[in-house]
């Protein structure tokens, strides 16, 4: 940009000066805002409030039937629900808003300008429940295991740290994660802050050959410690008197009752006052709870997509037109309505609909496949089937349905929609969960409906595992080179605005060449009696991050 026209006086023009000064000022302001934002987050620690009343017992209803005790190896709330209060993470999501990343065992952190080195400065004076000192050796052991699990150990969060080449304990209270390639900071910090990545003692891992599946009570640094556990009934924990965050937790005791999600036991136990807090309630009980005086009932987004897969190794589904036709033939509003009394859901596409990078709802609802009136979408779908040579429809498709109420309800509705709109006939086969995954992995299906989960809301997490070539949850066996190339760019783009644009481009590819058919996105219904204070789950994403109860108190009556 030339500040002056040829032949003009070569002094600096007023316009140039003002424009350049404005740009510089913006850059400085932005830079300091971003830097200040990060600095503010690091200062935004959770601290005890002396005005809050201490003591009491929280009775919490959640799925508390862990298949084993190794939180890292788990992917279910059955572990993280009861076990998380006993552990801390390096950094965490602020329980006050569910999203800001704030210090935890790491007091502060630095990220190198090239984004390839993350340095965490650890707190001093933290002890494990067994009295041992917490040091960087414990963090290194924890993350070495997560990043490169020993034989026989499977940790679903390993891919989040694929770019970490080395974890170095610089000194007892400083640890560095050295990346082989830079990744977006929000993504990396989100991975470190995930509630799954609890810090365990190095000695615990050494004593158990790196496998904690059978170790019920391994020491943590968390606000609560184990007292007793009765299998599939209740896990009792008490306040950790030596917790590093002085003044916390407010509660004396946690009683974590095994009450399965959406179950009548959970709903009835809460409504009868047997528990103070219920998580993952069914809609009917939740609506009843909402009407009760002295009760708060909220809904928040879960990190799960409900979808059905099409086996691309079978002829019709190899054709993207057939898959797009099936995608367009779905009446998504009706699918939400069908399960409204079973599980709370919301409409979405291939990207979490509440993520900043996804297409805004108002725009999404104008797109074919998401409109209230499905006629234009169905017309387009029929046209695509005709072009693909399947204008007469398809017969005898094997539709494998996971044996859970919502999937069975959806399967009937989907079967009807496919028949009515595209003359596709399916034979439903309802199977137990364990068999569903066997069938899905072995490709023994034409269509198969289930739910799949991600750890982060960030697309770099689930674009790899749900849609990635040979991705572990890519049950369709889908592949699209243009998409995979874009994913690589998204994984490495450090500029947020550019990254958003790339994500939108990727989303459009998925719309035209669907790897799965999105049915809905799950919501979680929580309810609690107002004697429970300090909890506001309405802003949470998922049920795996804000799970520690250290800032919750209970008003004594």
């Amino acid at each position, binding site marked *: 940009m030339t500040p002056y026209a040829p032949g003009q006086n070569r002094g600096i023009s007023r316009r140039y000066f003002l424009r350049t000064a404005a740009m510089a000022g913006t850059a400085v302001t932005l830079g300091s805002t971003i830097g200040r934002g990060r600095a503010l987050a690091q200062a935004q620690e959770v601290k005890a409030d002396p005005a809050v009343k201490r003591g009491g017992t929280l009775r919490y209803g959640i799925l508390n039937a862990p298949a084993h005790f190794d939180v890292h190896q788990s992917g*279910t709330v059955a572990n993280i629900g009861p076990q998380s209060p006993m552990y801390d993470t390096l950094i965490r999501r602020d329980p006050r808003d569910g999203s800001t990343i704030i210090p935890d065992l790491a007091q502060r952190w630095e990220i190198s300008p090239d984004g390839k080195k993350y340095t965490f400065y650890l707190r001093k004076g933290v002890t494990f429940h067994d009295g041992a000192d917490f040091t960087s050796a414990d963090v290194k052991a924890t993350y070495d295991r997560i990043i490169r699990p020993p034989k026989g150990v499977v940790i679903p969060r390993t891919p989040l740290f694929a770019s970490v080449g080395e974890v170095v304990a610089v000194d007892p209270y400083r640890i560095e994660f050295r990346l082989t390639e830079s990744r977006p900071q929000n993504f990396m910090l989100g991975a470190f802050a995930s509630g799954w990545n609890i810090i365990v003692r190095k000695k615990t891992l050494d004593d158990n050959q790196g496998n904690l599946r059978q170790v019920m009570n391994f020491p943590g640094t968390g606000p609560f410690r184990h007292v007793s556990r009765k299998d599939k009934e209740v896990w009792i924990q008490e306040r950790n008197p030596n917790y590093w965050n002085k003044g916390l937790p407010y509660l004396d005791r946690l009683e974590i009752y095994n009450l399965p999600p959406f179950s009548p036991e959970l709903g009835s136990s809460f409504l009868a006052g047997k528990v103070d807090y219920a998580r993952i309630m069914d809609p009917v009980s939740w609506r009843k709870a909402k009407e009760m005086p002295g009760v708060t009932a909220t809904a928040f987004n879960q990190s799960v997509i409900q979808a059905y897969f099409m086996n691309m190794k079978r002829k019709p589904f190899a054709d993207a037109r057939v898959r797009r036709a099936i995608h367009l033939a779905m009446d998504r509003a009706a699918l939400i309505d069908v399960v409204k009394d079973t599980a709370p859901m919301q409409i979405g596409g291939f990207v979490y609909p509440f993520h900043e990078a996804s297409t805004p709802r108002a725009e999404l609802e104008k797109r074919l496949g998401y409109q209230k009136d499905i006629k234009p979408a169905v017309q387009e779908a029929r046209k695509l089937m005709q072009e693909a040579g399947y204008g007469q429809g398809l017969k005898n498709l094997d539709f494998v349905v996971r044996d859970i109420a919502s999937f069975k309800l959806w399967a009937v509705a989907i079967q009807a929609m496919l028949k009515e709109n595209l003359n596709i006939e399916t034979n439903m086969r309802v199977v137990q*969960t364990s068999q569903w995954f066997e069938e899905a992995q072995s490709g023994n299906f034409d269509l198969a409906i289930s739910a799949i989960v991600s750890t982060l809301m960030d697309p770099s997490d689930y674009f790899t595992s749900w849609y990635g070539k040979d991705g*572990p949850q890519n049950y369709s066996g889908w592949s699209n080179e243009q998409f995979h190339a874009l994913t690589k760019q998204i994984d490495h783009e450090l500029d947020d605005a550019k990254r958003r644009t790339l994500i939108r481009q990727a989303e459009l590819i998925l719309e035209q060449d669907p790897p799965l058919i999105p049915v809905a996105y799950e919501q979680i219904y929580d309810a609690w009696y107002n004697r429970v204070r300090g909890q506001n789950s309405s802003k949470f994403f998922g049920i795996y991050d804000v799970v520690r109860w250290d800032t919750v108190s209970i008003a004594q009556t």
Partner: protein
Amino acid sequence: MIGVSLIVFVVLRVLPGDPLVAVLGAEGYAKLAPADRAALMRDLGLADTLPVQYVRWLKDIASGQLGKSFFRGDTVADLILRRGPITAEIGILAVIISWLVGLPVGILSAIRPNGWADGIARTLAVLFIAIPGFWLGLLIVLALLFWFGYKSPIVIVQLWENPWQNFQIIVGPAIILGLAQGAYISRMSRSCLLEVIREDYVRTARAKGAVERKVVLHHALPNALLPVITISGVLLGFVLGGSVAVEQAFGVPGLGRALVTAVVERDIIVVQNLVLLYALIFVAVNVLVDLSYAWLDPRIRY
């Protein structure tokens, strides 16, 4: 029992479904490499040949531990010791209720056949036989909740810990199961008593001036009871099976619920041990029923 053990062992290994899905969770299972899967199956003892696995199970039974669950390494023996008393109490109370309700109703129906009381009794009997116990159980749970704000304790409380809370846990399922069994007993006792009451010796007893109550209870009933006792033994099978569904409906953490969970999770060790236990109880009770004939009927000697 050997036959039952073989059948349950083979069936569980033939059924589709991978226990590793429940052990690792869906995400973990999706990321499982073949070599890791093989190692896990070895750790669980599922990589051995079927005869080896069967013999190992028999050894576990002989040792009293009954083997370990795939999950958390809990022993099946601990599971049975913790939850067994609850299910046993439900079963025993259900049998008591079935006799306390079924027998008097059957007697009343028989001594006043085709009357209004008999009509009501027979209608109710058919209803309790036809209506699924778990559905009735759910209705009761909801009625107690919405009308009285009541829910029974949500963890196991043993009889010796707190008898009142223990009673609250077992009474609901026991009533549902007891009424269903009582319906069968009332029908069977009615028809047996109707047959016996027409016998010559009963007419003779009346002719000798015995009061009607003595005629029915001392002369007719003992002879009418044999088939009723037989059916009670068979009905125990229904109680055991029914307890699975009814415990689910009431949310009672008994053996029935443990069995359902184990089936869903493909926890083969727990399932095969619980099924064998149920078979053993069924066989034992029916042997006792057979032996009781000798006490009830002096003509029968073994």
